[in-house]
């Protein structure tokens, strides 16, 4: 058949795109269904978060009132000295840590080291839960300082609206990710995926890294701007 002839002439670089897209059965060679579906879902989710951030940029630039200084708003006082964005920095490092443990889980999964993979997934879920906890603390602190979705003591009311909406939606993603990790880890230890390559760990990992990825952009645009 034509495919067999094609396989013999090895192509490289950009030509592989044409070859893969013009082949039969699968377009993304070697990508399991679940992984392809997760990637496409994440692309769609990228659009959701991009549009959240675009909307935030637009209202922030549109409003004639002054925008509160995030550096001051999110500072914590340590030993009598206000440290800007301290909690946010800790949250950032926490999320990176969880990304690292997740990457290890994926690696151990593909090595068929079930025990370590599951353990690192639980560890990832733990760091995720810690993140959500810190976010809850941050919300509580801001609410006690008078920040509401419709007003805040320092300037444009859209500050609070955007803050609660964007971090809230991200927090929901993290919480869902924690649940997802725990469910999949349990299923793995029960032996549900023993007949596979454990690509399920990578699929779960894709989602988790994506949550971290979104935080990179939120950190830059919401907290540093």
């Amino acid at each position, binding site marked *: 058949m034509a495919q067999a002839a094609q396989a013999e002439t090895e192509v490289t670089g950009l030509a592989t795109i044409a070859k893969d897209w013009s*082949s039969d059965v*699968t377009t993304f060679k070697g990508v399991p269904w679940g992984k392809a579906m997760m990637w496409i879902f994440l692309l769609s989710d990228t659009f959701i978060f991009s549009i959240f951030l675009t909307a935030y940029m637009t209202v922030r630039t549109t409003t004639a009132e002054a925008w509160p200084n995030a550096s001051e708003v999110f500072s914590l006082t340590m030993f009598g000295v206000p440290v800007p964005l301290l909690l946010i920095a800790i949250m950032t490092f926490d999320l990176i840590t969880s990304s690292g443990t997740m990457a290890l889980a994926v690696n151990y999964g593909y090595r068929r080291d079930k025990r370590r993979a599951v353990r690192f997934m639980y560890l990832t879920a733990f760091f995720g839960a810690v993140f959500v906890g810190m976010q809850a603390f941050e919300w509580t602190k801001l609410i006690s300082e008078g920040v509401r*979705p419709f007003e805040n003591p320092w300037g444009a009311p859209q500050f609070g609206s955007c803050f609660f909406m964007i971090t809230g939606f991200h927090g929901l993603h993290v919480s869902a990710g924690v649940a997802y990790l725990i469910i999949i880890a349990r299923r793995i230890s029960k032996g549900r995926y023993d007949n596979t390559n454990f690509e399920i760990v990578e699929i779960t990992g894709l989602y988790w890294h994506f949550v971290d990825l979104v935080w990179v952009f939120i950190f830059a645009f919401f907290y540093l701007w």
Partner: protein
Amino acid sequence: MAQAEIPYQEAIPLHDPHTWITKYWFSQDHKVIAVQYGITAIAVGLVALVLSWIMRTQIGFPGLFDWIDPELYYQSVTMHGMIMVIYLLTAFLLGSFGNYLVPLMLGARDMVFPFVNMISYHVYLASVIILMLGYVPGMEGPTGAGWTLYPPQAILTGTPGADWGILTMLASLAVFIVAFTMGGLNYITTILQARTRGMTMMRMPLSIWGIGMATVLGLLAFPALFVSAIMMTLDNVLGTSFFMPAINSLEIGEDYAGGSPLLFQHLFWFFGHPEVYIVALPAFGVVSDLISVHARKNIFGYRLMVWAIVAIGGLSFIVWAHHMYVAGMHPYFGFFFATTTLIIAVPTAIKVYNWTLTLWRANIRFTVPMLFAIAFVITFVVGGLTGLFLGNVIVDVPLSDTYFVVAHFHMVMGVAPILVIFGGIYHWYPKITGRMLNDTIGLWHFWITFIGTYAIYFPMHFLAIPRRYYQYDIGESTILTPSMEILNVSITLTAYVVGIAQFLFIYNLIVSYRKGREAGDNPWEANSLEWCTPQTPPVHGNWGERLPTVHRWAYDYSVPGQERDFIPQDVPREAQA
């Protein structure tokens, strides 16, 4: 590697239904889910049809019925638009045609994740129910903000349904998007990763290209609607001011400040324009197949048709603000968006030429589906040409919010895709049920619908009156000339007739299910894989032991020197006489 994946597909464990509930209600079979989507979409479409009668009654015979008050009128306008665009057209073309055709035309057992697919339908059903909650007695009724739901008026006192109505609408849209995402991920993953042996992308029937590209558009465009639905809900419930500027009029909206209504319009149309093509592309694809099959000729310029679909899909994301020329946006935008809008006419025109050239000197069989397909091309050309007027800023400004616009979008994305849906149903009903639809009723249905829609929408181009007006009288006087009044009355009367004709169609669907002529496996002598199933209607799993192998494209009709004038896709090259 690719070859290794096929045995997996052949051995894929199917969720076999045991009880009536798992077979017809919580079924994981894509064919059952397709029918579920179809029935729900038609049912909700009938609601929208009745709503359009209410609107037309008010415009044709203002003041005839007391119970059509301004609130009901605007609520009917809004719900009619939203239901038709989202809950009928999108749901039917992707949910029903997409679900039915994608696995069958690609030679797959089912969608890649049948369970998610099943959930998708039930979430869609939930979104329809939430939408209808707008009509719960005792509440204020559904929203009357117009289908574009522009703030600030959509959530301010004075607009019908500014609390309960808009909330049910936004919630329903968000839920619909969740349903669509679950279905859409399935369609696109199946198309990309689960085709059968020999089925390359360039051998896929154009229906699949259209459905696939529309799914991509949906997955990337619905996020904008999702986000704006969330933001507007927050504006309404929590009193945020994302879209709400400072308003101090008659003590309405005093709590808001600093938001940007223009932002909503941009986000809405960033979704809304791709949405036009989410509806149009599957229609383009399906109609290409109908024309080719019933003209007994290969589709003219298959490759160009494919690339046109891809180009339209890409361009549809950079034309959105042509809906906003009069919105007061940045003055430089008009030029940019007019240019991109006119560029998108090029691939669209290529498609129209190719349909026409496919018909040229063809051995046309004037079956009912073919009539609908030809009617689509005509209607689409008329609607598309007026789009050229509206795409130009300077021409659009005086035409904005007149019946010219109403005529344009009803022709191009209302009637045209509906004609394709009808054509598609007449075409695939024999495969779904094993029986033919009644031709006599079908012809009546076709001619009344086709001529009727022209009688409704063609005169609207010349009816130079503003749209979305409850009445055109000011005290004793009116802004309508007597000829306009006659037109309004005639349009309304035609709308009644066309509406009733749709019940003929539904009668046909029901009666033919039991009494229709036996169809056989391939009544239209078509090539694509869905006509090659071992059973008609196809059983769960579609293909028996082995998946089919594809050796050719789907358009080998009237090949010279052949016994029959069609060669199905699974016929090997060597077997060709």
